[in-house]
């Protein structure tokens, strides 16, 4: 144990105890909420994790005692707090009630014996073991939802070729979301069944699309993820093509939407050919492309944003997006009131996103509206932040990117990093508007909005103390049927003065308009 003033740090290694990473992050997250705890990590002792713990300042000798099969818990904080937790580590590692009811098996073979007719494997084991397990599933005739990341391109291609030959699909690697026949897999929302099918290479894009369809009163037949690399030329869109064919054959699907970041050139041509041949109406949304780069002339409809893709898909199936609660004139009026309260020096947008695709979408919208934007996950032609933790002028941060999530919980699960960043932006006198997404659904935090409100209140308070005003614009990606409840989540944000919009695209456009009002005021 080392001592530094009142602060203590300590490391505990538990030999041959394996826990999954999300569970361990929830343990660390609970520990961080204990009074007196400054830093907490609970990880398997892989080489990468050991290195990270050493970089975090924990004792390299103690950390080095662990192997990949051992659990490591590292804590920093007031001596009493650290000692109390480590003395009672067993109870911290107990799972919450409710987990016992899910049927479980000790092996792959036992699971198949217990449940003959299994048709999909949901694989989220560490990346280096994922391809092997996915091959085993395909060999057993099962489709694969592959959440794991750090799977090589070569492995991905081999898996997808095997799936393709067998009439199966591999959704992933790094696939966060799918909905199959009304059942959400991974990080999905509770969505009504209906006539719209969707294929997407991005998790949060798929969540945004499906929630917009649900909130318009329609529903989703199936939402199939493909993994972020599927439409690269290295993979050639094998899963996207398989999903398209299956949705075309599926009787419950009337129209199909395809959502993706820019595909490889060769794969884009093949995709366009497949879409042109599709017997069902299709909407395509390729985020990140400029107007000039968009495909034209096909029979399919082209959407610029996920919001627009949902709107077009609804039109094709006889529905429409609900009228926004405020007219555009009312939005302008509300934004003008916000601007009137601001200081002279306030001028920048700071977007802090849990959803990577939503960050990407917002960059595209602001770029199209002639605003120069910096990001840690920039569009191909935009500016990359030299330090993801320091904003520059207009900045949009993907807080789910690797630099924030290596060994730490994703912002969809834990709000502590995003809360800290909200407060930091609040201390910057040049910030005029915070742009946020709040993502609900299975797998997300129990109270994603509630976890942010204190930080939002603090940031707004900071601006007011300087005689200014901080506008906070947000959208909640969720439905009334989600475990967290859309209405309750929106009410919590509204209570601290957040202006809410139907979608991320709408919130981003409003942020842009707000900056225009500021520019007009400055003349």
């Amino acid at each position, binding site marked *: 144990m080392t001592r530094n003033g009142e602060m203590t740090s300590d490391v505990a290694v538990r030999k041959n105890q*394996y826990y*999954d*990473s*999300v*569970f361990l992050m929830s343990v660390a997250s609970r520990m961080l909420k204990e009074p007196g705890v400054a830093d907490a990590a609970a990880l398997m002792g892989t080489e990468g994790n050991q290195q990270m713990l050493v970089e975090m300042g924990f004792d390299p000798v103690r950390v080095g005692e662990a192997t*990949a*099969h051992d659990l490591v818990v590292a804590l920093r904080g007031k001596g009493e707090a650290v000692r109390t937790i480590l003395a009672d580590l067993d109870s911290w590692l107990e*799972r919450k009630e409710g*987990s016992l009811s*899910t*049927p*479980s*098996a*000790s*092996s*792959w073979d*036992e*699971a*198949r014996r*217990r*449940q003959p007719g*299994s*048709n*999909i*494997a*949901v*694989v*989220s*084991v*560490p990346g280096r*073991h994922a391809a*092997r*397990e996915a091959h*085993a*599933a395909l060999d057993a*005739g*099962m*489709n694969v939802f592959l*959440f*794991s990341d750090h799977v090589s391109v070569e492995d991905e291609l081999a898996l997808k070729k095997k799936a393709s030959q*067998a*009439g*199966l*699909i591999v959704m992933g690697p790094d696939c966060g979301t799918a909905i*199959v*026949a*009304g*059942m*959400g*897999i991974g990080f999905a929302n509770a969505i009504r069944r209906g006539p719209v099918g969707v294929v997407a290479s991005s998790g949060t894009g798929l969540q945004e699309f499906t929630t917009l369809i649900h909130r318009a009163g329609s529903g989703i*037949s*199936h939402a199939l993820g493909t993994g972020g690399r599927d439409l690269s030329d290295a993979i050639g869109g094998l899963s996207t093509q*398989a*999903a398209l064919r*299956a*949705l075309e*054959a*599926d009787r419950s699907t009337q129209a199909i939407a395809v959502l993706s970041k820019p595909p490889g050139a060769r794969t884009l041509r093949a995709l366009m050919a497949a879409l042109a041949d599709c017997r069902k109406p299709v909407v395509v949304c390729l985020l990140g492309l400029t107007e000039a780069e968009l495909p034209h002339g096909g029979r399919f409809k082209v959407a610029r944003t996920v919001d627009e893709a949902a709107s077009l898909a609804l039109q094709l199936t006889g529905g429409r997006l609900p009228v926004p609660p405020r007219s555009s004139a009312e939005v302008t009026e509300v934004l003008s009131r916000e601007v009137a309260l601001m200081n002279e020096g306030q001028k920048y947008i700071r977007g802090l996103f849990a959803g990577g695709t939503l960050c990407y979408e917002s960059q595209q919208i602001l770029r199209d509206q002639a605003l120069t934007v910096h990001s840690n996950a920039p569009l191909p032609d935009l500016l990359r932040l030299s330090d993801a933790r320091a904003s520059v002028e207009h900045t949009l941060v993907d807080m789910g990117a690797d630099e924030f999530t290596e060994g730490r919980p994703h912002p969809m699960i834990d709000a502590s990093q995003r809360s800290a960043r909200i407060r930091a932006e609040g201390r910057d006198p040049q910030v005029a508007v915070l742009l946020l997404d709040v993502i609900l659904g*299975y*797998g997300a935090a129990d109270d994603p909005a509630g976890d942010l409100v204190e930080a939002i209140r603090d940031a707004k308070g900071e601006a007011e103390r300087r005689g200014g005003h901080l506008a906070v614009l947000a959208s909640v990606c969720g439905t009334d049927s989600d475990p967290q409840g859309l209405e309750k989540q929106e009410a919590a944000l509204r209570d601290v003065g957040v202006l809410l919009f139907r979608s991320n695209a709408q919130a981003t456009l409003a942020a842009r308009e707000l900056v225009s009002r500021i520019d007009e005021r400055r003349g």
Partner: protein
Amino acid sequence: METGLESLLRYGPVAINLGLRGFAESLFRQGAQVVHVDWTPPADIDDETAAILDKLL
């Protein structure tokens, strides 16, 4: 003939979950058929040996 993917869409997921237990729990809560496998990493062997073992077992 119906492919394995078409059949998945028609009948809905009957899932085996390897890894994050929470994914099995949320499927179970939604009423899906699911079995969770208490997965642990295999012993440290190189990929070549693993491939040979896979073939033998």
